[in-house]
């Protein structure tokens, strides 16, 4: 069968391969070409056994998928250099480097002093160490065989390397679910699908890069263990699950999806001992293993996210027991309804126990991030910091199409086929499809978990279609002797059920693997004659091949244009097509590294925390690990209040330098002014008395920085730091001085001086501006001291607290001042 399918592809690909010039696509086509050229040998040479041939073809296709998956992720390395991208990868890189230098145990105990000044951060207990350990192991291995490679190169190329492995895992999963041919398609799809390559291009050294491989591999092992019911495979599932837990917080998806699968199988009355063995072993082993990760700890037994797995485990035990009784009791059939009622009762009581434990406080309720998946307005109201991240927004239709193109259209078809020819493992992929598409719709970031599923189901749809249509030579009896043996071999590892079906069909010219049920026999008789005329078959195959080509071109285009930008090095193109590199970020961070005192503390918005710590090696107040909302809100408050207010906060936090990102000079849209409203919003959440979002809008509710903008906005620290001396600069001959090219307006407040900060450094294109916070001026010392005494008095007089509180005054001198400020303000208004 495989041979026949590919024979037709060879014709098409030979015709069309010359049309495309894109190198990436070429490799993809080549993979099919090579596969087909070798398959052409099939009828002629009887020396090569069909078994060997199918394996060879699969091997070649998978190798090509691996290589094309790896290569298509290297655009950014070729265009720029081997560099770590974006924000989070910088932290991962920094901690990996720390681990390779100081060893694993020191890494687990690492207390990071450069972050969250003055709090610091316990790194070992607050991260998933899988990524660092993986690259550390690779580094260690390469050094052992005397390849002295720098850890950075490993970090940069880890994600493409693992995306190749993901293709293999997807192949294995699809092979278990449908057939080998569908598996090859799925491997080719996942290798180039933009939905996945968006998170795994070279340089984006992030958890997701390896986690998707772990996800797919765990699913494959799970399906395998459900199929075989062997202890070995379910142990492997648990181990693979352990790797996933160590790598990514998305492991919750696995530990909920697998129980749902088991539960639905129970409901569908597809319970079997295989299921019992595999789930019991997987759950217990997986539970114990997952609790070994410090960051996870006791969560698997204490939080609601994991309770589904525990509940299903209890239910399965009860079900198994009742099932056992059912076989042992005489005249059990009479008690059928009793057993049924008992089952429902146990199910409800398990549910009730979980609910009661949650109310009693033994189990933590759903955390905000998970809750916001169900109640989609939750985050918007309660946790602005989650809602502020752009990848937590709901997904538009456009981005579905952008990331998956043709596959998104074939995806429901695959699900349909799986439902029509349902068996234990296809229940799983259908459930995966439903849940993943819901989550991907709610949060654009979870497109990543949807992509593998889409690839699998689209491959199934396509392979089933091509099984029939690419097979123009059904009437040609010369191939028929080959086919049955071929198929038997192919399905060697599949379950008995499938094999039995194949034996039924043996000798038939066109067996369709995977199809079963009574309808089959009717069709088999029909299949003897070629029903659809071969012309139409050819047209269908050509059309599908053209759409597939379009898919490959699209994927390459998207990966190269949209997802391969490191975002710390920007590129712009001149009119003559020459490229111009804007390297302001690294310039600024390098300046920080070389020109500031070693213990200097830099205040910036949290987005840049990891980069400052990673590249600039300086202490930051807040960073991308947004664990302390009130600290972030304090920084937001400093940025959004006027200069003297901000100075109080900055001296309180011991800030030495302030760093802002400003894109108005060259039209870089991701700058701090565009993010400013989120700073205001987050600050408002913690300090509603001092910061009000409305104050930053004009009367019409617009956010503008030009003359009609609100005066509070035009005098806040962020505005001043961004536009300091910008009014003197004429960016263009046609525009007035002080013309902001990102927002296309002339700024409203031009000539102002800074009182408490002074400009320290501004990069070439003004993207990064660094200011030094002045020390308290000498002359004001006496006055200040006097004022301070007064303030203390007022604290004593206004506060209702007893003298016990006053004793602590010396310890946190600055804190009461802030509180006092808010209180006095409220009473006046």
């Amino acid at each position, binding site marked *: 069968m495989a041979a026949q399918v590919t024979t037709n592809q060879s014709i098409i690909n030979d015709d069309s391969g010359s049309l495309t010039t894109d190198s990436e696509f070429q490799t993809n086509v080549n993979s099919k070409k090579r596969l087909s050229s070798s398959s052409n040998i099939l009828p002629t040479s009887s020396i090569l056994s069909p078994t060997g041939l199918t394996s060879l073809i699969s091997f070649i296709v998978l190798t090509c998928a691996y290589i094309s998956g790896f290569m298509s992720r290297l655009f950014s390395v070729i265009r720029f250099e081997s560099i770590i991208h974006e924000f989070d990868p910088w932290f991962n890189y920094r901690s990996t480097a720390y681990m390779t230098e100081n060893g694993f145990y020191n890494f687990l105990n690492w207390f990071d002093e450069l972050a969250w000044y003055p709090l610091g951060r316990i790194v070992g207990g607050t991260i998933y160490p899988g990524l660092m350990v993986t690259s550390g192991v690779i580094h260690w291995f390469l050094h052992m065989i005397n390849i002295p490679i720098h850890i950075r190169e490993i970090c940069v190329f880890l994600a493409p390397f693992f995306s190749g492995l993901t293709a293999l895992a997807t192949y294995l999963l699809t092979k278990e679910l449908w057939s080998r041919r569908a598996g090859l398609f799925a491997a080719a799809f996942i290798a180039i699908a933009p939905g996945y390559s968006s998170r795994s291009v070279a340089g984006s050294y992030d958890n997701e890069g390896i986690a998707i491989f772990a996800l797919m591999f765990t699913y494959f092992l799970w399906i395998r263990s459900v199929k075989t019911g062997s202890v070995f495979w379910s142990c492997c599932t648990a181990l693979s699950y352990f790797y996933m837990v160590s790598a990514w917080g998305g492991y919750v998806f696995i530990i909920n999806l697998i129980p749902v699968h088991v539960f639905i199988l129970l409901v569908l009355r597809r319970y079997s001992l295989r299921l019992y063995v595999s789930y019991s072993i997987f759950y217990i082993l997986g539970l114990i293993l997952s609790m070994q990760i410090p960051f996870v700890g006791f969560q698997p037994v204490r939080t609601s996210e994991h309770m589904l797995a525990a509940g299903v485990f209890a239910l399965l035990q009860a079900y198994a027991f009742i099932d056992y009784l059912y076989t042992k009791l005489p005249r059990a059939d009479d008690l059928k309804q009793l057993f049924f009622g008992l089952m429902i009762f146990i199910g409800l009581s398990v549910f009730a126990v979980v609910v009661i434990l949650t109310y009693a406080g033994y189990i933590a309720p759903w955390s905000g991030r998970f809750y916001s998946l169900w109640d989609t307005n939750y985050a918007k109201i309660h946790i602005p910091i989650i809602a502020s991240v752009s990848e937590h927004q709901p997904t538009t*239709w456009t981005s579905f199409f952008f990331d998956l193109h043709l596959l998104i259209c074939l995806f429901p078809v695959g699900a349909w086929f799986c*439902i029509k020819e349902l068996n234990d493992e296809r229940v799983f992929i259908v459930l995966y*499809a*439903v849940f993943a598409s*819901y989550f991907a719709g709610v949060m654009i970031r979870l497109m990543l978990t949807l992509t593998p599923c889409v690839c699998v189901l689209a491959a199934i749809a396509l392979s089933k279609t091509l099984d029939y249509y690419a097979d123009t030579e059904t009437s040609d009896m010369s191939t028929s002797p080959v086919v049955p043996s071929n198929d038997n071999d192919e399905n060697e590892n599949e379950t008995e059920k499938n094999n039995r079906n194949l034996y039924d069909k043996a000798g038939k010219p066109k067996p369709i693997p995977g199809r079963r049920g009574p309808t089959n026999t009717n069709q088999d008789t029909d*299949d003897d004659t070629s029903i*659809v005329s071969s012309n139409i078959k050819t047209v*269908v195959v050509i059309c599908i091949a053209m759409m597939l080509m379009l898919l490959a071109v699209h994927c390459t285009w998207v990966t190269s244009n949209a997802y391969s930008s490191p975002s710390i090095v920007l590129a712009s193109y001149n009119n003559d097509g020459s490229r111009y590199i804007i390297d302001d970020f690294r310039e600024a961070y390098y300046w920080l590294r070389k020109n500031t005192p070693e213990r200097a503390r830099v205040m910036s918005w949290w987005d840049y925390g990891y980069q400052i710590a990673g590249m600039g090696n300086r202490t930051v107040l807040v960073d991308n690990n947004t664990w302390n909302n009130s600290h972030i809100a304090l920084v937001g408050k400093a940025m959004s209040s006027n200069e003297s207010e901000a100075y109080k906060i900055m001296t309180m936090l011991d800030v030495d330098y302030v760093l802002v990102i400003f894109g108005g000079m060259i039209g870089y849209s991701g700058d701090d002014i565009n993010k400013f409203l989120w700073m205001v919003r987050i600050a408002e959440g913690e300090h509603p008395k001092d910061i009000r979002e*409305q104050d930053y809008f004009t009367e019409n509710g617009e956010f503008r920085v030009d003359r009609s903008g609100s005066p509070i906005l035009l005098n806040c620290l962020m505005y001043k730091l961004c536009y300091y001396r910008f009014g003197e600069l004429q960016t263009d001959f046609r525009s007035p001085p002080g013309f902001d090219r990102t927002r296309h307006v002339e700024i409203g407040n031009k000539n102002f001086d800074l009182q408490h900060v002074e400009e320290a450094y501004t990069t070439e294109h003004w993207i990064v501006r660094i200011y030094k916070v002045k020390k308290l001026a000498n002359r004001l010392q006496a006055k200040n001291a006097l004022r301070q005494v007064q303030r203390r008095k007022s604290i004593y007089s206004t506060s209702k607290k007893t003298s016990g509180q006053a004793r602590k005054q010396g310890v946190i001198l600055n804190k009461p001042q802030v509180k006092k400020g808010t209180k006095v303000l409220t009473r006046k208004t």
Partner: protein
Amino acid sequence: MKYFVYLFFICACITLNVLSEEDVLSDKIQQLTQWSLKKPIIRLNNEHFKHYVKASSRNYSMFIMFTALSPQRQCSICKQAYDEFQIVAQSYRYSNAFSNSVFFGMVDFDDGSDAFQYLKLNTAPVFIYFPPKMKPKKSDYMDLSRSGFSAEQIIKWIHDRADVEIQIYRPPNYSGFLLVILMITMILGLLYVKRDSFKFLFNHIVWGIFIILAILFCISGQIWNSIRGPPFTHRNPQTGQSGIVCYFISGQTWNLINGPPFMPQNKNNMGLFADDSNMQYIAETYIVQILFFLHFGVSIGVILLNEAPKLKSQTGKRNSFVAAVGIVVVVILFSYLLSIFRSKYQGYPYSFLIK
């Protein structure tokens, strides 16, 4: 018992009838407290408004909702806003924070048109905070267009203005619960009637269609519509929000649906549409439906392709025909999909059959 005490107290106050200013004030407070004990929201007419709110000698603050509840005004939002406001007032009434310095009131346009004229209001509903001894400032008007009028938002606003912490207590909405119960009993009854043949439950086709529709709903961006709908449409979480309800979509959503915001020429188009809200509503639905059916169509086409060889016919012409229809549907609809995508995503270079 409490009421009697209060009544007695008030009677005593009235009989004393001393006309000093403080007594007038305490008199007012007495009256207001009495009213608000009876009913959490005090209904004010013209005289009441003048006497209790407009008068500058006031040491209590009031949150007043200006609305038009009578049915001939046809203000459906007013009713919803009134319900939310009532929840807030109710929660305040039975909370610990209840005191005689903050009151909740309501002025209906038909009772108190003078109050509307006095504040120069020409829309409803409006929430205004009257701080003690002062006239309301600009910031004392609640910004409904931005925050919506859900009880949570109102409480946030109240906390902001008057520093009163109210723990919200929503009376559970039994109607939704009852509906669910009814549904479940109906389904169970149906199952009981059909208890001999559970076959229809195991029918793959039914479940299949259901699941496919669910998936299509998710991947054709309908969730985005339902989340990004304005607060007016699905503000009540208890009634359950479906995507279909949320076709009433704000201009911004429309703008984003129709194209990324960086396209200036599209924004000009928007100006045309935004004037007429009905137009937008229809167009919006139209676009969303098309997207939904395009996906659906492509899927159907592929399924047709696969069903084609299974059809029973003598000659095979019918099978060929179905297969041809299938591939034509797939190709045409997919290229149409691609061309829509192209029009949205400026600078996308590829197209297939249709430009």
